[in-house]
């Protein structure tokens, strides 16, 4: 499979504080990769760097062979990278339908539209005129996921889909992933739940203190290896 996204020596800073230290990362077309790690390991910063929310150097990120580091978020989403942000961050003054339509702002064409999303998440059609933030946590996550899909991305980045959700709701959310990846969409998930991450992904990267401490095929990694890479003990 060909590499669709890669980072080379990726560094990121919040003011003077360095959050990422030379991340080397590769993603193949159609692959589903999980990033795991403790709080503060740099997982979310990594996704924010990929989407332009945290500034990086020009050549540190390549999408389809083209340097995209340092581009503004709007240009990156037009090139096919969409983020489901941590904590969902729906627009409170917009309805469910309006939140979803905001995802189509980038103007990319593809299979994802309101009709298809409503068939994937029928509850959202029922609640399409409700304010996005009036929904339950799981339904809000569906809106956040749907909003990202509405941009018809090549690569979908999901930051902590399971954050604050009940296990049954998490399973419900992950149940739709095969429908999303069926047409070759490439997916990166940041996940605190290690067993869930291993279960749904083909490869795993483990981050520790802003560095990649472990990577490998999900089925090959042992609990001990992950514990050591996760906690550094």
């Amino acid at each position: 499979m060909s590499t669709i996204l890669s980072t080379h020596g990726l560094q990121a800073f919040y003011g003077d504080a360095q959050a990422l230290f030379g991340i080397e990362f590769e993603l193949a077309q159609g692959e589903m990769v999980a990033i795991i790690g403790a709080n503060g390991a740099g997982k979310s910063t990594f996704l924010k760097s990929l989407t332009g929310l945290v500034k990086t150097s020009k050549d540190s990120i390549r999408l389809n062979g083209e340097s995209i580091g340092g581009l503004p978020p709007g240009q990156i989403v037009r090139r096919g990278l969409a983020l489901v942000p941590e904590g969902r961050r729906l627009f409170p003054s917009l309805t469910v339908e309006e939140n979803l339509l905001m995802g189509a702002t980038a103007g990319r064409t593809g299979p994802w539209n309101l009709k298809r999303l409503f068939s994937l998440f029928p509850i959202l059609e029922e609640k399409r005129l409700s304010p996005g933030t009036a929904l339950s946590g799981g339904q809000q996550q569906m809106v956040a996921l749907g909003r990202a899909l509405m941009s018809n991305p090549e690569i979908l980045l999901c930051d902590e889909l399971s954050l604050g959700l009940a296990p049954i709701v998490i399973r419900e959310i992950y149940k739709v992933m095969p429908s999303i990846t069926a047409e070759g969409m490439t997916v990166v998930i940041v996940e605190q739940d290690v067993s869930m991450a291993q279960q749904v992904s083909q490869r795993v990267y483990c981050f520790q203190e802003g560095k990649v401490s472990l990577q490998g095929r999900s089925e090959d990694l042992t609990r001990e290896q992950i514990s050591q890479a996760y906690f550094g003990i």
Partner: protein
Amino acid sequence: MIETIVQGLLLGGLYTLFALGQSLMFGVMRLTNTAQGDFIVLGAFAAIAGISVLGLPVGWALAAVLPAAFGFGYLLQRYVLNGTLGRDPLPSLVVTFGLSIVIQNLLLELFSADPRSIETGGLASEGFAVTDSFSLGVLPLMILTVAIAATASLQWLFTRTAIGRSFRAVSDDREIAELMGLQSAKVYALATAIAFVLISIAGILQGMRTTVSPADGPLLLLFAFEAVIIGGMGSFWGTLSGAMILGVAQQIGFRADPGWGIWFGHLVFLVVLVVRPQGLFPKTRG
């Protein structure tokens, strides 16, 4: 008493137009434009200059001011005010305060301190009798109609269109809106451009109804600010209601004593600020 209330509502129409631009800019950018009143006066003087200096027919001069205001507002936000936005409201307050001083002095230099008005061909004095002792002016009724139409249009734009959706999205969460592909700098500029069209309409109508002079800005800002606060920040129908309450309060004051009108309006504003600081109709979204 009914006459007083009706006159107050008519005055409230003008105050609505003073305040709508402020309400839009605050609703989208959380930006308080302290030069609002001076921009209203600038709009009036732009029309006066078009008529008396360039010799344009009245209709042409008025029609030319609106697109000019749109362009001016867009460029001002894009290249000046966007740089002042952030968590700290002080930079935008200082910059718009500075603009206020610049506009006042510029107008003073160009037009002197003399009050001026826009020639209406007798429209300002036309009216019709409702009863033997009570008549309504045509121009105030026109102003009220324009105010209601502007409020309804703005509410429709904000809640029913893709542009309004963008305004609400950048107002809610600028970072995520940019992640969706919106360019917040351009969205803000568009909001200010629309606000400046409203400001110029307010200025022109003020210049048609009465006289304007370069020093009028701060008082007009105060009326705009009071209307927005009474109605509730960021709510257009709330702004209209706030302006109506202010207008009626001033008219009741004027009726009690000719020197009490403005003061009575301030009193109502202060009472609302103390009792209900979020305004009477604080719902910010349609």
